[in-house]
């Protein structure tokens, strides 16, 4: 049953909406009467529970200069062209974002991402109805795709029906990594050309976060999805000019962009430079203006700083963590005590220092503060396995292993698998060394990248050194993907009924003050159960030339690539 709002109630909701400007938008506070009329009627029992639009944190820059081409670093060529929905890699999102728009996005000027930092984009405002069961999005008018076709609600329905694999979806993605994000969406309704309603099975405020991610662009319904592997038709601030395979991706300003006066830049050129040393030499020599998200590790930043390069550095979180996966379906890791002993044995703070030379921070399953919104406090972390005094933890690990029947006479022997890439091998080697100190004999098995996921998916591993990037800093975007029973990316097969209930509860909780402790409880439980022990959260020093203005790196690598507000002070 679709719940629709009485016009009168909607008036109240819409009036409550702060008609804050989208970033420099022309249609600021668009006619609310028209918006009201566009929403269909209306069971009497339905209630408007919330109506909200956040205003961006910064107004258009008074001194913003037009012109210039931004030279951006890129580490590899596109794997699936510009089809962001078909990938789960920053290598596609970063150069793909300038071509597209989302319904909503994260405020480009705020580093920490949360519901409070979600601002309008193609949806000029939104309204939660019926106790957060329906999300009504009022779409901007007069927006055109790069080929001149008008943007309408049909495009939104087409896109998200495709991603969630709705039975009546017009098309299908050949690879669909984020289908589960929209598992709670019951249906999507294009109520009129400028109104879209997401009908949910149960309340889920975090849906807005997912829609704001760089992974959630709106695709045009009139362009076959396969075409995105070679071209890009979006509504975004830049049009694709040229993609020279293996060399560069070049965008030019979209002259018909729906935000007057934007973008500032004439274009962006993403230079594909495979060799990391060359990439940073190019940045140092001024051949590039900005780095690539997540690439500037602490040693690289230190080297650039000591060289006297004229670059500005921003220390940010990446929302990417290193984690240990253990195959829970097979002995010995079907025993929670053994898993906990393993987790206890690895000193997290030493890990950050040794493997990342200090370019990582300790934290549980959500990105720690100040980078993340949901991370546990330092005092709470200290109580978790692997975060307290290393000697005490290791002694406890030995004791637990002894209780489980392992000791000097009968050491636990395991195989640690990881990708044959230096950083992964360093990670695995560190853990192996830590395990050795509690009497666990672990051997390293290096697996070629192409083989890693098939092997893990088939659960043909015992232990693994793994990396996980999270598209949004929200528990729903993490827990359902990596810890929920049956999720394809829950590589350990951890499945706990109690945890699932807790995840469901927090997901529906509308009061942030109540949701936070619930999320903390889940994090504690996951670490106690060693569901997927987190080794550390990577940080980035994102260097850029001083003449690059208005580019604010976020504490999440996936969400700040739009470049709409960026300008060059040359």
């Amino acid at each position, binding site marked *: 049953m679709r719940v629709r709002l009485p016009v009168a109630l909607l008036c109240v909701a819409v009036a409550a909406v702060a008609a804050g400007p989208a970033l420099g938008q022309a249609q600021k506070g668009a006619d609310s009467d028209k918006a009201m009329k566009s929403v269909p009627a209306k069971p009497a029992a339905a209630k408007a529970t919330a109506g909200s639009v956040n205003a961006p944190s910064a107004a258009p820059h008074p001194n913003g200069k037009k012109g210039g081409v931004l030279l951006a670093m890129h580490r590899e060529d596109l794997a699936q062209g510009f089809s962001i929905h078909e*990938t789960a890699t920053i290598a596609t999102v970063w150069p793909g974002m300038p071509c597209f728009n989302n319904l909503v996005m994260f405020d480009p000027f705020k580093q920490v991402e949360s519901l409070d930092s979600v601002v309008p984009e193609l949806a000029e405002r939104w309204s939660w109805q019926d106790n957060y069961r329906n999300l009504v999005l009022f779409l901007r008018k007069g927006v055109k795709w790069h080929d001149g076709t008008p943007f309408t609600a049909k495009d939104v329905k087409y896109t998200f029906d495709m991603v969630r694999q709705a039975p009546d979806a017009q098309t299908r993605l050949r690879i669909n*990594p984020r289908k589960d994000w929209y598992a709670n969406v019951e249906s999507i309704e294009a109520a009129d050309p400028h109104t879209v309603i997401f009908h949910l099975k149960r309340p889920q405020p975090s849906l807005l976060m997912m829609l704001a991610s760089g992974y959630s662009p709106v695709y045009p319904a009139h362009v076959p999805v396969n075409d995105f592997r*070679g071209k890009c038709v979006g509504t975004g601030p830049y049009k694709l000019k040229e993609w020279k395979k293996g060399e560069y991706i070049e965008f030019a300003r979209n002259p018909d962009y729906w935000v007057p006066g934007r973008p500032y830049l004439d274009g962006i050129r993403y230079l594909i430079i495979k060799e990391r040393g*060359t990439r940073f030499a190019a940045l140092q020599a001024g051949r590039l203006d900005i780095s690539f998200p997540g690439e500037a590790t602490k040693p690289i930043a230190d080297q650039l700083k000591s060289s006297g390069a004229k670059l500005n550095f921003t220390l940010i979180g990446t929302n990417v963590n290193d984690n240990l996966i253990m195959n829970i379906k097979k002995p010995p890791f079907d025993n929670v005590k053994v898993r906990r002993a393993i987790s206890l044995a690895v000193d997290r703070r030493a890990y950050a220092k040794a493997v990342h030379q200090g370019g990582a921070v300790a934290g549980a399953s959500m990105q720690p503060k100040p980078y993340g919104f949901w991370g546990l406090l330092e005092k709470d972390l200290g109580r978790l396995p692997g975060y307290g005094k290393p000697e005490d933890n290791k002694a406890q690990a030995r004791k637990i292993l002894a209780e489980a029947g392992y000791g000097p006479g009968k050491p636990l022997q395991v195989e640690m698998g990881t990708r044959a890439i230096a950083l992964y091998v360093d990670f695995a080697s560190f853990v192996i060394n830590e395990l050795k100190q509690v009497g666990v004999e672990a051997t390293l098995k290096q697996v070629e990248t192409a083989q*890693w*996921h*098939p092997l893990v998916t088939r659960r043909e591993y015992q232990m693994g050194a793994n990396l996980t990037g999270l598209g949004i800093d929200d528990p729903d975007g993490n827990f359902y993907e990596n810890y929920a029973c049956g999720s394809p990316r829950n590589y350990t097969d951890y499945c706990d009924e109690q945890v699932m209930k807790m995840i469901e509860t927090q997901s529906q909780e509308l009061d942030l003050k109540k949701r936070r402790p619930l999320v903390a409880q889940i994090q504690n439980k996951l670490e106690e159960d060693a569901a997927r022990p987190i080794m550390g959260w990577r940080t980035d020093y994102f260097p850029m030339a001083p003449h690059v203005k208005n580019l604010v790196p976020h504490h999440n690598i996936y969400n700040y690539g739009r470049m709409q507000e960026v300008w060059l002070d040359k």
Partner: protein
Amino acid sequence: MSVVIFFLMRLAPGDIVDILFAAAGYVNESDKQFLMKELGIDKPIWAQYIDWLRGLAVGDFGKSYRYDQSAWEIIRPLIPVTVELAALATIFSIVLGVPAGVLSAVRQDTTLDYVLRLVSLAGLSLPSFWLGMVIILGLVAWFGWIPEMTYISPRENLPGHLVQFLLPAAAVGYRSSALLMRITRSAMLEVLREDYVRTAWAKGQGSRAVVWRHALKNAILPVVTVIGIEFAFLIGGLVVTETVFNLPGVARFLVEAILWRDYPIVQNLVLFIAVVVVLSNLIVDMLYGWLDPRVRYSS
């Protein structure tokens, strides 16, 4: 050759579908089957081989799995880059290596000989990619400058193009020149002890004529052989140099295609390299005849 190229690639575990799913962080068996069918890699290997040969016969090199674009369209712009870089590196190695080898042989056991031998030993010991990286880092550190990071066409900007190519050519050419120098030196030492050279000296010919006309002409055959081998090797062996200097050449793309299991690209690039090897050997054989009349007469 085509059999080896085609089947060896498929001995490596995994395929493009595995890699695409790896980038998505999951594997779904039904989606995987669908994708394999779309790319045509669900067919038996022999059927894929016949399809490839059939395509080659009519000039169809297949379609890149990764880019969903004609393999030839992707490969075509890469070839001139690598051929030019290999040619420049070869020229650099000849210009540096052959005269140094001759000098070293003529001045055997002198200080000059020791210095040149040391330089050549260094050239053989230092990997060209390391040297390339040192060149890049040195330029940044001392001049705050490095060459352009995108390919400059010679038609657009010839000086810029040459600057972009000369540094990697020097890095690669230095290593090859060291090899040429050693080969030239040993061949020259052998020839310089021959009776006809002694006769030439005895007849009072000038050292330039004896060394460069009589001795070098007879010592050059093994050097030419090595030059041919080196050139062919460079066509496929410039991987790291192209990567370090960010040049869009065959070798860098080949490695990328191998990692992505983009079979149509790999097969055609390897075939191209094989053709270059055959051709360079043919040219060397023809040069033998031109350089040494005995080869012509004996055949």
